[in-house]
């Protein structure tokens, strides 16, 4: 400022509303203060005249995006401000002389407030950047973790596959041997044993055969549970007829009627076939003593019109309602295997297979009044 006395006076006037003021002798000093963090600057017209404004221009140009330093120019006329360095962002308030101290106070206070807001924005920006960086970092970490877990999961699936492969090959082989040798002893040395000895050998053979059946069912269950399911348009009637033709024993042991029309559904043919053969097998197996098994198969639309429900109704021994849930669970069986041969996995396979095809299954029954099993599947357009 040109006359130190004026400057001192201004500083004193501003000190009253607690604004800290430094008096600079020239623009270079001002630039120094700006770099040290001054909140605003008051320039007189004369100071701009008297000194070169290059360094002020440089300081203003180097301002970061968030910053727009407030300049207050005290001038006789408007042209005083024109001598300031050209900058689009120049944040200048022109206060015409003679300056009223109250005006100056409020202009300076407004400029400082403005500056404070700039700092606040700056802080928020910094925080935002930090948050963004932290987010990016945790995203990367997450992606890494997902990748790791996926690999681990794939490894587990591979191990499981190898496991079930090895079960189907290795676990069944000793069972065949047990049955085979028991049978061989019966055939070759049976006449040298008494009936009790022969009976025990037959028990060894049938136990081994039953365990083999169990292993096969567990494998069937795991195949249904883990395999990839691609659904396609499947004719239920065709699948039912195929099952009946594939297992001649079904036809021999039961009267099976299929009531047309049978629907076309979205299903996996192999899975559906497994379901149908398990349900028909049960219908034959759990028959009432002395009553010829009858199985009636028919279908109807579900209320939503989107699904079809296929019913398998038998005239067997029936199931008490409190067992409805249990029978669909793996190894869930109501009768001992001495009375009804089986592994207790058949209906678990049905449920799992139907679920994998996006459908549902259930049963209606009463003790002694037969059972009505149903499969509900998406209709095929």
């Amino acid at each position, binding site marked *: 400022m040109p006359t130190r006395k004026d400057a001192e006076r201004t500083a004193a006037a501003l000190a009253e509303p607690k604004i800290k003021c430094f008096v600079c002798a020239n623009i270079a000093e001002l630039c120094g203060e700006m770099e040290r963090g001054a909140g605003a600057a008051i320039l007189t017209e004369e100071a701009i005249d008297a000194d070169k404004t290059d360094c002020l221009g440089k300081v203003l140009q180097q301002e970061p995006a968030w910053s727009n330093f407030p300049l207050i120019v005290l001038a006789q006329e408007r042209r005083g401000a024109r001598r300031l360095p050209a900058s689009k962002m120049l944040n200048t308030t022109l206060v015409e002389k003679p300056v009223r101290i109250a005006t100056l106070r409020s202009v300076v206070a407004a400029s400082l407030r403005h500056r404070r807001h700039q700092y606040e924005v700056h802080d928020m920006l910094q925080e935002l950047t930090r948050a963004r960086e932290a987010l990016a970092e945790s995203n990367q970490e997450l992606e890494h973790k997902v990748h790791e877990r996926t690999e681990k999961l794939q490894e587990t699936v591979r191990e499981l596959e190898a496991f079930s492969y090895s079960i189907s090959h290795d676990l069944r082989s000793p069972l065949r*041997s047990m049955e*085979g040798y028991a*049978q061989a002893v019966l055939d070759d040395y049976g006449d040298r044993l008494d009936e009790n000895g022969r009976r025990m050998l037959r028990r060894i053979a049938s136990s081994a055969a039953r365990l083999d059946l169990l292993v096969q069912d567990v494998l069937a269950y795991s195949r249904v549970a883990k395999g990839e399911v691609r659904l396609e348009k499947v004719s239920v009637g065709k699948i039912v007829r195929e099952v009946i033709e594939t297992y001649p024993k079904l036809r021999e042991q039961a009267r099976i009627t299929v009531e047309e029309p049978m629907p076309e559904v979205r299903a996996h043919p192999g899975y559906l076939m497994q379901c149908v053969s398990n349900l028909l097998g049960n219908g034959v197996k759990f028959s009432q003593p002395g009553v010829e098994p009858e199985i009636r198969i028919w279908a109807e639309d579900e209320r939503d019109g989107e699904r079809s429900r296929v019913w398998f109704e038998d005239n067997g021994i029936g199931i008490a309602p409190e067992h409805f849930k249990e029978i669909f669970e793996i190894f869930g069986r109501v009768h001992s295997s001495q009375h009804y041969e089986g592994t207790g996995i058949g209906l678990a396979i049905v449920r799992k297979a139907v679920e994998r095809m996006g459908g549902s299954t259930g049963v209606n029954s009463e003790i002694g009044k037969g059972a009505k099993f149903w499969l509900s599947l998406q209709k095929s357009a």
Partner: protein
Amino acid sequence: MTPDAPILLVEDNEDDVFFMKRAMKAAQITNPLFVAVDGQEAVDYFSGMGRFSERSAFPLPGLVFLDLKLPKKRGLDVLEWIRNQREFRRVVVVILTSSQEPNDLRQAYAIGVNSYLVKPARTSELEALMRAVKNYWIEFNVFDPGQA
């Protein structure tokens, strides 16, 4: 297939060899039976290598029972090897395994197996299987006369 055409059984499990011999006897299959106890031996048998170098003692088989899980060379690899040899590619190969894995079935048929049989759990069923083999492959099936 003539009743004197040899049958090659590729099977590493002694018990299964024992049961097969009994079941074949029960089914009255009288063809001479030779046994290779691993995948490599099966290949050696066909190529007349090692202990099978004497062709008159180990004549080329008309029918092969091939297990899938074998030491040294997998059953599917043996099958592929046989199918890749000009002179053996028409030999009737029947897979006889305990595996019903969809993958095994798919691959075996893709390589060109003639039949795929699953080892049954019961002696009576194995005998029934061998009777079926005798009827179909030994009695009824008509072979390519150019086949070894």
